């Protein structure tokens, strides 16, 4: 009886959130649309996700979305993929994760492969080679831009607080770049070293400074 009662409550629960559980094929389609529409990553895709999942379909609440987004900043690898996993699981549990990832990544990955194959076909032509001599340094500029976008928020925070934060920012950024490009140290060591430096040296110093 108790079991029946609880299942009734559960039913009632899904009834109030009822229309908020999308069919799997719909979930797949929505993620496919988002994946194919997003070029050059980051902020544009975030806007698309917000529009589809909160505004158009009300599958997610604003608070859940914000919580997922801040949590995903901790994820290794592509932040958006972590976001897809969390939203997929929230909406349709395990199958939801698979369907969402497939929708977001597979069509785009296939198009990326087709573009790469097309490039392989034409790359020997001299006009294409001339174009690539312009494109390659531009991609370096793009990487530089992404680096600056990463660096700005912590630098801004640091300049508004104590000097130790600023020293931490500069030391870790410069040391890690040098460690890779100049001393050719293994990346895993560099990443772990930076974490150790931050948590082992700067964090205790900052704590002592506050106390």
């Amino acid at each position, binding site marked *: 009886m108790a079991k029946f009662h609880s299942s009734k409550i559960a039913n009632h629960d899904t009834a109030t959130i009822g229309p908020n559980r999308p069919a799997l094929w719909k979930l797949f389609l929505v993620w496919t649309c988002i994946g194919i529409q997003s070029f050059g990553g980051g902020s544009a895709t975030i806007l698309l996700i917000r529009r589809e999942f909160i505004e158009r379909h009300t599958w997610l609440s604003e608070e859940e979305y914000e919580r997922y987004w801040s949590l995903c900043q*901790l994820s290794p690898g592509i932040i958006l993929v972590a976001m897809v996993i969390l939203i997929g699981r929230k909406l349709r549990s395990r199958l939801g994760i698979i369907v969402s990832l497939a929708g977001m990544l597979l069509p*785009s990955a296939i198009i990326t492969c087709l573009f790469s194959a097309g490039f392989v076909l034409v790359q020997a032509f001299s006009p294409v080679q001339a174009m690539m001599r*312009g494109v390659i340094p531009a991609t370096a500029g793009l990487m530089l831009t992404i680096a600056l976008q990463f660096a700005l928020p*912590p630098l801004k925070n640091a300049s508004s607080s104590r000097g130790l934060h600023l020293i931490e920012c500069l030391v870790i950024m410069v040391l890690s770049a040098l460690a890779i490009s100049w001393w050719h140290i293994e990346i895993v060591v560099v990443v772990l070293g930076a974490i150790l430096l931050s948590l082992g040296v700067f964090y205790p110093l900052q704590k002592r400074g506050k106390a």
Partner: protein
Amino acid sequence: VNWFLYFLLFLKASTFSFGGMSNLASLQRDLPIYHWAHLSDFGKAVAIGQVSPGPNGLWVVSLGYLTYGIPGAAMALLAITIPPFLILPLNTLYRRLEEQHWMEALLRSLVLVSVGLLLSSAWSILAETLQDRWSIPICLMACVLCITRRLGALALILLAACAGFLFYGLHF
């Protein structure tokens, strides 16, 4: 190509990266050692990734294709899909993690080390092109245009292709 090691190198790069582009530095370091990729492949893959749809991080799929064909692309895709699954255990720990003061310091160190990774991979790409007169001006111009948000990544790549054609194809 030892496909298992190839896959592991991609997986390692993705696991120790933060955001879609900072795995570049690790791959730039590892793949050429085994002669599985030429240094010039990385710039090409990033450029193709920028003109293709999908998250930024899908540029590795292009690198996989350029270096090892369809199997390479599939392994690259798998390698970038696995590490973000760590978000599921993190999600269950969220309430406890949220209260820890050191979390902020940890997050900051990850962002900062990514800046180092991105800077050194930008340098590696640029270093390959330094024999060309216009490389550094194009690189800086691209950076300025992106930061001031005058141009999206797609338009930027097309513009750079035009510039390359003018300077090196027509010898303007």
